[in-house]
């Protein structure tokens, strides 16, 4: 069963003018979480009492005439559990941090609250945000609400599931190698990986200092704009605000080979090509682009991420023996990467960036499917493609995602699948600094390619 979900802008108008009280909205949201979380395991902590206190305070503020100008007034938001929320456990999805509680809120959380948002809880994730499945032994495997029995993707799987089930209108995730876009794609919601450095990562437990980013997830691409505006206020770096042309003047670059890729689910290829055809009717140009050697990028990026993660999880106070085996294995890889290869990986970012920058001189955006497959089954480790080749679920899931973390560019994943099938994501990447413009453009694109929006009830 599903229900429609109002656009975020309409929801905020309704709370600002009092047609819906914040108490009523938050109370409904908490009921939804309460009814569904046992089935979805989207949340680790639910902050019901604090959320209702905050809702009362916001309703009182509205009665005083103080609601105007708060672009997230009364909006229920969920925060990935590796980002600090004052007074709330900050487990990072690890049993090893079950007792950790945040003494303050991360700037990204504070920014959403300053815009009027109400935190309703923290969301489940792949342990330490280091994995693509969100299968979590300590806090329960997150269930994909659009495909029970299938993974929601990770590592921000709980955030995606919360948004897909209407348990939050907006959720924060983190994206180091695709951890926002992947679960957004598998769960049929929209997600933004911001230009690296534009949103503060303070108060977020690090996975990889040089690759981490915090960004919003929401039912629609259009719903990403208000939280993005709030989050941009936290950035430590000032970027030129780059503008992208509207769709009718847009030059669309297409990820090399995806039109004829044999290692792709048929439904993904069909939905991607249909979306491309639709966009091509309005766009100024559509053409395949050349990109640098993706195998080398993947090797360099894994070398960097595993090394930095191994550094995070080292020292006398760290006992990795309680970590899940798959995370231990990745950290063990990082322990073995020589410093020379780590440094050369960082240097390779310069080379790749220059090549990608030249592509962006000729194209405004580069599009691809977000993932080459629909959400894999929970017990699946290998994917067999239509061309009979096989690929691990992890390798397949991140194939189109890593490049944009490597060069730090923004990109959006938005739904482009069939209403009755498993979700399919369309990934739209743009030059650094164009985050606002990219979200606006994707709001235009989703009108053309996204299936009708529905909020799915969580599995029982």
């Amino acid at each position, binding site marked *: 069963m599903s229900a429609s979900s109002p656009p975020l802008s309409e929801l905020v108008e309704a709370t600002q003018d009092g047609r819906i009280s914040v108490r009523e909205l938050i109370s409904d949201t908490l009921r939804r979480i309460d009814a569904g979380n046992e089935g979805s395991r989207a949340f680790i902590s639910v902050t019901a009492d604090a959320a209702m206190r905050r809702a009362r305070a916001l309703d009182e503020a509205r009665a005083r005439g103080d609601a105007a100008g708060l672009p997230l007034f009364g909006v229920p938001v969920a925060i990935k559990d590796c980002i600090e929320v004052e007074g709330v456990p900050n487990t990072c999805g690890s049993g090893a941090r079950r007792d950790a509680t945040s003494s303050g809120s991360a700037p990204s959380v504070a920014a959403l609250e300053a815009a009027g948002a109400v935190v309703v809880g923290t969301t489940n994730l792949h342990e330490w945000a280091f994995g693509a499945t969100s299968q979590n032994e300590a806090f329960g495997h997150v269930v994909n609400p659009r495909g029970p029995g299938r993974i929601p993707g990770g590592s921000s799987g709980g955030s995606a599931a919360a948004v897909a089930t209407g348990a939050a209108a907006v959720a924060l995730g983190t994206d180091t190698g695709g951890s926002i876009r992947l679960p957004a794609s598998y769960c049929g919601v929209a997600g933004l990986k911001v230009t690296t450095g534009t949103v503060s990562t303070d108060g977020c437990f690090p996975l990889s200092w040089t690759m981490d980013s915090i960004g919003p997830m929401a039912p629609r691409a259009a719903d990403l704009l208000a939280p993005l505006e709030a989050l941009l206020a936290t950035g430590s770096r000032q970027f030129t605000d780059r503008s992208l042309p509207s769709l009718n003047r847009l030059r669309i670059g297409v990820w090399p080979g995806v039109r004829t890729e044999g290692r792709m689910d048929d439904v993904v290829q069909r939905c991607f090509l249909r979306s491309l055809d639709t966009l091509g009717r309005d766009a100024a140009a559509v053409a395949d682009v050349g990109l640098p050697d993706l195998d080398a990028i993947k090797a360099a990026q894994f070398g960097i991420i595993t090394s930095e993660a191994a550094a995070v999880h080292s020292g006398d106070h760290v006992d990795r023996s309680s970590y899940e085996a798959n995370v231990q294995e990745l950290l063990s890889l990082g322990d*073995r990467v020589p410093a020379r290869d780590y440094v050369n990986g960082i240097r390779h970012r310069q080379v790749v960036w220059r090549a990608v920058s030249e592509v962006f001189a*000729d194209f405004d955006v580069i599009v691809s499917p977000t993932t080459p497959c629909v959400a894999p089954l929970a017990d699946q480790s290998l994917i067999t493609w239509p061309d009979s080749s096989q690929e691990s679920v992890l390798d397949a899931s991140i194939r189109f995602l890593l490049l944009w973390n490597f060069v730090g560019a923004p990109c959006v994943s938005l739904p482009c699948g069939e209403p009755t099938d498993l979700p399919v994501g369309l990934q739209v990447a743009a030059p650094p600094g164009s985050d606002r413009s990219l979200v606006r453009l994707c709001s235009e694109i989703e009108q053309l390619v996204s299936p009708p929006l529905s909020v799915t009830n969580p599995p029982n």
Partner: protein
Amino acid sequence: MERADSSPESGREPLPEDGCDRRPPEDPGVDAFLAAVRAVPTAPLKDAPCNPPPHLRGESSASVAG
């Protein structure tokens, strides 16, 4: 039998002084991973100093092409 790699580049603990390798066999996936990371192409130093790209160093994105 091929002797296990114990060079500093291998990333593995060195062999004990008696030269007898008592370590468990390496996971071939680990070796493949390390080999792939080692094989990342390196550009001339002037083209690729150990700095992130300009926009990741806080420089204006106006400097990027396009």
